[in-house]
């Protein structure tokens, strides 16, 4: 299939369905889809012809489980040929049940095991800064993933180092067994982060939250999806 027009959010159900065989329901239930779309459509400075450009922004999908929404957005934005979606999870497909940066152009990290993306994002921010860059680094995690202690090492560290090029999006669909009394955002705020909580299905609210000023501190956007 040749892409002859720019695709939009309306194309997501069809792209999603090429993987799952279901265009009607599953895409709409994907908790990460709205924020992924807002990031790629309105926030990130990335493009399919700049996947190796050092000055690009970095988006790290740490919550790599259930990557169909991610693949669909990458396809809609021209990073993936949509026909590749038909090969999803086949032996020689680049698209597995967890994304792999070595196999998929535009994917910044391979993920699947939880709790790895945020510490890597902290190192990426530090490394880009040491090289004089001011690129934005956005990492997406889940509320269940937040259970992993490695996140809390990184949350404390990023707060103490004041990494204002770092943004964490926590998609909070209440999946953690033991939960976060007082809210997910409080875990970041207590470590000195700018933290805000929004409706994770409201694209305008997500956009506004992702543009929250945060000078000298990292930013956490908790996207509640219930």
């Amino acid at each position, binding site marked *: 299939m040749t892409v002859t027009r720019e695709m939009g959010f309306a194309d997501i159900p069809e792209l999603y369905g090429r993987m799952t065989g279901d265009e009607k329901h599953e895409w709409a239930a994907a908790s990460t889809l709205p924020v992924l779309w807002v990031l790629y459509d309105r926030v990130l400075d990335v493009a399919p012809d700049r996947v190796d450009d050092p000055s690009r922004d970095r988006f790290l999908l740490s919550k790599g489980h259930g990557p169909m929404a991610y693949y669909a957005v990458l396809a809609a934005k021209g990073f993936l040929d949509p026909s590749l979606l038909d090969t999803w999870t086949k032996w020689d497909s680049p698209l597995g049940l967890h994304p792999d940066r*070595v196999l998929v152009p535009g994917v910044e990290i*391979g993920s699947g095991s939880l709790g790895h993306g945020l510490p*890597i994002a902290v*190192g990426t921010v530090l*490394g880009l800064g*040491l090289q004089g860059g001011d690129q934005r680094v956005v990492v997406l995690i889940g509320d269940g993933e937040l259970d992993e202690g490695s996140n809390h090492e990184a949350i404390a*560290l990023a707060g103490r180092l004041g990494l204002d090029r770092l943004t964490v999006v926590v998609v909070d669909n209440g999946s953690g067994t033991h939960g976060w009394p007082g809210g997910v955002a409080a875990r970041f705020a207590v470590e000195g982060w700018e933290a805000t909580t929004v409706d994770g299905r409201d694209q305008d609210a997500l956009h506004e939250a992702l543009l929250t000023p945060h000078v000298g501190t990292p930013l956490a956007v908790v996207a509640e999806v219930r």
Partner: protein
Amino acid sequence: MSTMREVFARTVTEAMETDPRVVVVLAEISRDVFPATDRVINVGIREQAMVGVGAGLALSGLRPVVHSYAPFLVERPFEQIKLDFGHQDVGGVLVSIGGSYDDPGWGRTHQAPGDVALIDTLPGWTVHVPGHPDEVAPLLRTALAGDDRVYLRLSLRTNARAYPVTEGFTVVRRGRLGVVVAVGPMLDRVLEATADTDVTVLYAATVRPFDAEGLRRAVRAADHADVLLVEPYLEGTSTRLVTEALADLPARVRSLGVQREAELRAYGTAQDHDAAHDLDALGVAAAVRRMFGHGGQA
């Protein structure tokens, strides 16, 4: 004489002056031996973050040196090493101190005889086990200039003299009865234990990649394909590579190292632990006699 750690810090500090790629990540340990610059990042006592941050630095285009005491560098954040470096396919230089039991008074928590065996479960790692502080700088300079994944295992245990750093094994002595491979700090004890036995002694400061061809050459030059492998970490760590190297020969292989069977709940000195694991000169000599008999030099 400087310790391996002092040479490590000095070499990295010098490299940072000329190579803008080099950056150090620490978790408190050794924070005082590096200069205070924004390219020395102390993450606090957070070893998972230490390795993840190192990988992020590598993804951004830098050459991270990630350093801590061996169990806290290799064992605690092992999945970060596997995924954040290996699966992301980025490079870095991991440098440990403490060896198998450099400071046995601290007990099991500060012992890491399994570090090389663990790294050996992952593809694409170079592993250096220097036996003398003077071998550290050349190994490290090469590692810092590269893009690959390197584990450098430093120890307080050293041989009396350094050997020139080469890619393969170094022939220290030639003999007829077979071959003894001494890894890193084990060389002096192997030389003492084999003083009256007519064997070839190979010295290895680099064990991954494993110099299979060098071993084959040495074995072919001897009368018997008998190989005794003496490693300063978990016994048998490199045995599979010895047997693969000699797959077409009717070879006898025996391996010495830190014994696997039991956790030694004992303190004392590193020399005490050598004796307990039969890794002192007496223990190695006994293994040499069992393998090569009492054959004196021709």
